[in-house]
């Protein structure tokens, strides 16, 4: 059984302008020791998905349905108290912006100790001991000194390490990382990704890695879910996704990426912008931007279906099998042809 099994998750927000259906029937699962990458453009519902699982949406504007089974327990039905118990101990989360995610007026030691004490009935001293160990583990130099420093005395990369230390300090079974490296330099990103990989190997933590960078996905994920406008459009093992992408949006994503290993004159251009979730287009949500849209796409929403021959590769598109393989090959060939 998967560690986390998300089934038909839906979340909507009440706003002044109407109802925003931010997440619209998302299903995926992740096993211990595995990394699931969720990729998609800004505003497609990646963060909301993770916040919904954590129960961190503002209850006064958000409504959710579906199931998020964590070790068999539905998080959406869990009491606030139970959720608090799980948060930070069994499920941990790190956020995009390390600059603002730490409380600026408390020492990082205080914040780490808080994380421990919230879930363990141990002395402050022991908690501090653990905090120190966690800092050592994430590779903060001279942790005994730095533990009493304030967040602003750390660089972005170091803060993200602290955030990871804080997330992992209670040895959670699941770590949700919401764009943990987006705000960082490539060199620091490489360090952080390396660190996460290492820690995952050591602790066997399951990771949900949310990002909009296909490069990061390729580096770290075992499975990938591609999201578009609140829905998953394609889901596959990482190599399969990059080798045989099946959804036009995935093609667009891959093709529009400038790559230093591939020289192109023009990038593939997905025209237009991601749709507003307030009034999403009917039918397939990608159809207004899709070069292959057919009339059925305008009216009917495709469901995730498995690819022939690959039961773990799912996609939601009405294109016929032939077109899918043909176009994917063309795309890959176009990129590969120029690979130096």
């Amino acid at each position, binding site marked *: 059984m998967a560690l986390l099994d998300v089934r038909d998750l839906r979340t909507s927000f009440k706003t002044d302008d109407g109802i925003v259906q931010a997440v619209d029937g998302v299903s995926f699962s992740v096993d211990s020791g595995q990394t699931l990458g969720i990729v998609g453009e800004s505003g497609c519902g990646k963060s909301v998905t993770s916040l919904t699982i954590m129960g961190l949406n503002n209850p006064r504007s958000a409504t959710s349905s579906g199931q998020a089974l964590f070790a068999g327990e539905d998080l959406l039905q869990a009491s606030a108290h139970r959720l608090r118990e799980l948060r930070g101990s069994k499920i941990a989360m790190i956020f995009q912006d390390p600059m603002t995610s730490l409380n600026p007026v408390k020492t990082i030691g205080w914040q780490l100790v808080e994380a421990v004490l919230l879930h363990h009935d141990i002395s402050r001293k022991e908690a501090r001991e653990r905090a120190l160990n966690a800092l050592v583990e994430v590779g903060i130099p001279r942790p005994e000194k730095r533990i009493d420093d304030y967040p602003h005395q750390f660089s972005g990369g170091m803060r993200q390490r602290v955030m990871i230390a804080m997330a992992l300090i209670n040895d959670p079974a699941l770590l949700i990382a919401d764009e943990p490296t987006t705000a960082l330099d490539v060199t620091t990103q*490489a360090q952080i990704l390396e660190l996460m990989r290492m820690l995952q190997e050591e602790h066997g933590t399951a990771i949900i890695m949310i990002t909009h960078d296909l490069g990061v996905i390729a580096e770290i994920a075992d499975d990938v879910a591609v999201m578009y406008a609140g829905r998953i459009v394609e889901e596959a093992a990482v190599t399969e996704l990059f080798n045989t992408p099946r959804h036009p949006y995935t093609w667009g994503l891959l093709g529009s990426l*400038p790559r230093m290993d591939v020289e192109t004159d023009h990038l593939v251009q997905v025209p237009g912008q991601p749709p507003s979730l307030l009034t999403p287009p009917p039918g397939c949500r990608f159809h207004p931007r899709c070069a292959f849209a057919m009339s059925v796409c305008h009216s009917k929403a495709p469901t995730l279906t498995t690819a022939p021959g690959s039961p773990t590769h799912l996609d939601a598109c009405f294109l016929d099998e032939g077109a899918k393989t043909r176009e994917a090959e063309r795309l890959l060939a176009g990129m590969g042809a120029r690979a130096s």
Partner: protein
Amino acid sequence: MSDELLVVENLQKHFPITQGIVFQREVAAVKAVDGVSFTVNRGETLGVVGESGCGKSTMARCIARLLDPTGGKIVFDGVDITRLSRAEMRPVRREMMMVFQDPYASLNARKRVGFIVGEPLEVHGIGTDAERKRRVQELLEIVGLNPEHYNRFPHEFSGGQRQRIGVARALAANPKLIICDEPVSALDVSVQAQILNLLRDLQREFGLTYLFIAHDLNVVRHISDRVMVMYLGKVAEVGDGRSLYDDPKHPYTGALLSAVPIPNPELGRRRRAIVLEGDVPNPINPPSACRFHPRCPRFVAGTCDVDEPQLRSFGGRHQAACHFPLERWPMTVEEIRRPAGSAVAP
């Protein structure tokens, strides 16, 4: 008319840190840009990469004279603009425009698109009102917007569209040079591709010259003819895109290249050349000699921390500032850590 549109020599920008009770003394300086020299030829794109805080934006703003350089010389289109006054700068501003990073913050939210795009024309007194309006509509069309958008406000547009407005504004007065300071780093991949394509097309159509700053090596590679790598206010390496990416000489360039995630699972996970330790040091107190030496895997004590390496040529226009340049690329971890010819100081 020379080939060189922009010549920058030994550009320096130090932000003073002052202290004092009655009279403020300068006690230290943030050496944001500390002796950068390069040239940009007409019609070419020079890409600039480097980690955050290495002085890319500061350099760009000095060139645009939004900041006063501390030292060095900037020659634009044959004119030394380093010390021009505000008034003297005015005509130069027509020739040199800028596209900014944040498509949200770089457009005045309280002004209509027509005003924003037409402002360079208005400021420089180009054309009549009606002509200006026509020109603005034309520009909107050029950047792929609808001329009817003339009377809209920026917030009615998406990020990509806003960046198009920014580009239109930069184009308005027919400049020769456009400085792009991370113009796509705030955009989604699909939109980023649109803007990159647009910039390329415009360059072709109008013979523009770009100084293109980014920290995404993929993007820089894609758009630039030549690429300059900066580290802590200095140039580490500069060269044609292909030779620099395929055959980096400076270990820092190597480290950057190897840190870029490649959207190819097989390739990406195999390659693991240089992972740098630590962060970019504080520019108030930059390391001595080669500024990269505390993080450099090929560091040789007694040389790198004593002697400041100068840019030297590695064939063609490829230059790097390193005592122990990389021999080949990619290389193994062992090779990296054992600089060949460590005894031979150049």
